[in-house]
């Protein structure tokens, strides 16, 4: 049963921040609410005040950052991103990721910011945004600050947001030339949360060597994570099947997954081992075309 609460529906960011500042920890933010309402129904979250930011239209946008990158308002729905004509070239991976995120109904209402703030290590957007080297902007009455996506989630369902802070924007920088990014997730039911998700972004240098690489894993640890050791295996080298296999191996050891109903720890490691080379190959193929 959901405990009743007082409901605020601010129309501007300023109003929302003022309310947040006023009610501090007694308030919770709701946006699409696709995850929060479930927690509230289970009684796991029972806020006194609910600040409903779904109606703040100033936070729903996709625009250019002026340098070939994108700025996405935190309240942009998954479906808007999926259907946006701006999700092409280096950003197409974002739309691809969104297509496999839950159901159309959920994507129509749920927002990318809400997904990130939920802090679920199995969420789809985080690994992709980490691979794309995206940053997050957070605002409070005191001001703004930014953080790379990879530093945003601190633990299971715990983020770096401080009391009084709101996630406002995601900046996805323009990928360097000759960069390809790809994402895949493993699950048993097609539209399900990831048992393991893997995103990779590869920038090819002279002679198709791996000039730069970012590999991000979902549902492979308490938070979405970068597989830096695996990246190191490939970085600066000419990519071969053997190296890719080694990177997969490395990623599977640096991952720190749990055993649960969906999969055992070993199986998750195994999946990381298989999916890292697969998706890196795909990223490389895209980099060649980019």
């Amino acid at each position, binding site marked *: 049963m959901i405990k009743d609460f007082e409901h605020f529906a601010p129309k501007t960011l300023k109003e929302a921040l003022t309310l947040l500042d006023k009610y501090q920890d007694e308030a919770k933010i709701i946006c699409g609410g696709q995850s929060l309402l479930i927690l509230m129904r289970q009684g796991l979250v029972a806020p006194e005040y609910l600040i409903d930011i779904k109606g703040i239209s100033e936070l729903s946008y996709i625009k250019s950052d002026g340098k070939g990158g994108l700025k996405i308002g935190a309240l942009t729905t998954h479906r808007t991103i999926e259907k946006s004509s701006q999700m092409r070239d280096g950003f197409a991976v974002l739309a691809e990721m969104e297509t496999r995120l839950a159901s159309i109904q959920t994507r129509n209402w749920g927002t990318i910011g809400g997904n990130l703030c939920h802090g679920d290590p199995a969420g789809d957007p985080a690994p992709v945004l980490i691979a794309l080297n995206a940053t997050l902007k957070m605002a409070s009455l005191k001001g703004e600050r930014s953080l790379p996506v990879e530093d945003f989630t601190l633990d299971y369902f715990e983020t770096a947001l401080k009391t009084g802070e709101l996630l406002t924007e995601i900046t996805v920088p323009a990928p360097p030339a000759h960069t390809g990014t790809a994402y895949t997730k493993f699950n*048993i*039911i097609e*539209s399900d949360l990831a048992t393991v998700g893997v995103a990779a972004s590869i920038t090819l240098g002279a002679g198709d060597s791996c000039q730069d690489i970012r590999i991000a894993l979902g549902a492979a640890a308490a938070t979405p994570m970068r597989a830096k050791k695996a990246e190191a295996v490939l970085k600066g080298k000419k990519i071969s099947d053997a190296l890719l296999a080694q990177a997969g191996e490395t990623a599977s050891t640096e991952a720190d997954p749990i055993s649960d*109903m969906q999969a055992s720890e070993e199986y998750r490691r195994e999946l990381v081992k298989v999916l890292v080379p697969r998706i890196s190959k795909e990223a490389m193929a895209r980099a060649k075309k980019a």
Partner: protein
Amino acid sequence: MSEYSVIGKRVHRVDGPEKVTGSAKYTFDLVLPGMLYGKVLRSPHPHAKILKIDTRKAKRLVGVKAVVTGKDTLGHKQGIWRRFPELCDEEILCREKVRYIGDPVAAVAAIDEDTAEEALDLIDVEYEPLPAVFDPLEAIKEDAPQVHDGIELNININRHIEWGDVDEAFKKCDHIREDQFKCSSQAHVCMETHDAVVSYDYGGKMTVWTSTQSSYYIQRLMADMTGLREGDIRVIKPPTGGGFGSKFELDSAQFCAAILSMKLCKPVKIVLSREEEFTATKRRTPMYYFLKLGAKKDGTLLAKEARVITEGGAYTAMGATALYLTGFFSSFPYKYPNYRYDGYRVYTNTAVTSAMRGFGAPQSTFVGESQLDMMAEDLGIDPIEIRRKNGMTPNYEVPGQAFIQSCGLHQCLDKIEEHVKERGKLPPNHGIGVSAYGFMSGGIFNWFDTPYAFSAAVVRINIDGKVDLFTGACDIGQGSDTTLSMICAEELGVKLEDIRIHAADTGICPPDLGAWGSRETLMNGNAVKRAAAECKRQLLEFAAAKMAPNIAYDFDIKDRWVHLVDRPERGVSYFDIVKEAIRGKDGNAIMGRGHYTPHRKGMISPAYSFGVQAAEVAVDTETGRYKLVNVTTAHESGTVINPVGIEGQLEGAIMMAGGYGFCEDQPMDEGKILNPSIADYKLIRSLDMPETDILEIDTYEPEGPFGAKEAGEGLTNPTAGAIGNAVYKAVGVRINDLPITPEKVLKALKEKEKKKK
């Protein structure tokens, strides 16, 4: 056989317009004036003594109207096996002991659901936790905790089936295989959870609206448990959001709402939450299976022995039947000259296992069809060939058990063989697995031992020619209202729209045991057909008198035309005859009664349907993940009454049975079901659903109405086995425990690799 005018045609379901416009009113939708809302408090312990229940605080909460516990009941125990008191073991509201997580201990009625739920938190229950046991293999040990006092080794019930001389026969076999399997649980996941609105009035009469597969059973079980006379309880089944075997026993929603309503003389509604539905209603029976199979070199199966231990959960429920049927269907669909089965149902401190679509046969078919493929491989025989060699044929007697009249198994095998050939050479890591099955058309078990007919129907023709069909059959989505209306229209010679069906209301309908064991088409269909035939006989009497032909011609009615059989152009309108006949009866409507009770039809069922299924999978050998590419089914169910209905049953069965093979499971920790939500309980969705093809085989069942037999449950039997066999064909690994998850496949692939090295 003359052309049928109604049956076999693609028609709209009779409940269609209501359902596609959202105007069908389910129990879930009902609101009565003055209605209260109930909630049930359930045990958090798998096994505990109830020391004390203090309801005072809850009663004081504003808006709470009543709180009841086991003390407010008669203390009777419900069970469908009324002749065997020891098998009636479920109090529903526990008085002294709880036996699984979810066992009800108290219930509240309040002005709204929130208040009722709040009140649950205010009920103080003092428990003394007892040692608990979860696995049947543990529960049958000497020193295991006792789930029910005085039950030796926690064995709830055992079943033995035997014919021939099994031990002698094994001596004559060229090859013997012994294999072990484990079949998992499965949740029914009806989209409408269990719910009931019960209204008990000051005059001592009770009306129950409930989502059920048998208003008849609910009426009688409710009478047992409340002490009311059967006739004072009227059970009405509104449109029902699925059953699949989960809704034909008295459940906590019905019983608690009844007890609360009796306290208050006000209507009380209880709707189980999805979580309660997963944890505190019945589920498919998990089974440990030990199989021994012996054959001659040429593939002739000489002997089979099956030993089964099932996880019973806390109470008997319908478990005894599942135990029997899994044993019986372990011999299906083959002619074993020697066969022995021993099954044990063991009490455990887990949610109760019971009936679910297929009723023990999906388990036996999975294990049997898996082992048969292994045997075929050992002997170097084609899987279809070994099935052909041993498959049942028409007019076969299962020794001492059953007589099979119509049987199209061999035609089904031929069709599937063609299909597999047509698919030709498959891409790498694809495989097609085959699985054959049979199932019953209605069970010959009258659990209740009442003197009522198994199925009965009343047909009444009104002055305008409109026909009221009264039947106790329960349409839970499978479409019996439509099928029975079609049978009635065909027999009477009128159009489908002339029939108005009144079903599953014990106040006005004759009894019917309900929708289980695939019985409605054959059993209720026969009852309806007879009732309609009786009406027709009366009409034709009038017709004969009126038309007074000078020779004794036979009369018939077809498409609302009453005519001479040999000279169909000579006749009169059905409507005219109806008017005159009713006038001739002093204004009394034309009425016909019909019933069906199987006599001398063996121990299981009066008829059986058969089929063969081929499932194609594509395996990713690096992850073990496989896709269900296609499922093609050749099946026969006698005369097809309602073709749209059969397609739906078949495709729906693949979603459910494919899920049983592929992903559905109820993992537990210390008796706690870990995935009690649709998010965590994995179900096949549209993107996961394979292509499905149907190859219809013509048969005619002499025992069935117009030659029809079942086409609903049997279709859940073959899929898990077909998937298992397909995975083996694709990548050479055999998974003996359900569900066949990618993780298990990958593990097996790795082990296989290791062995190679």
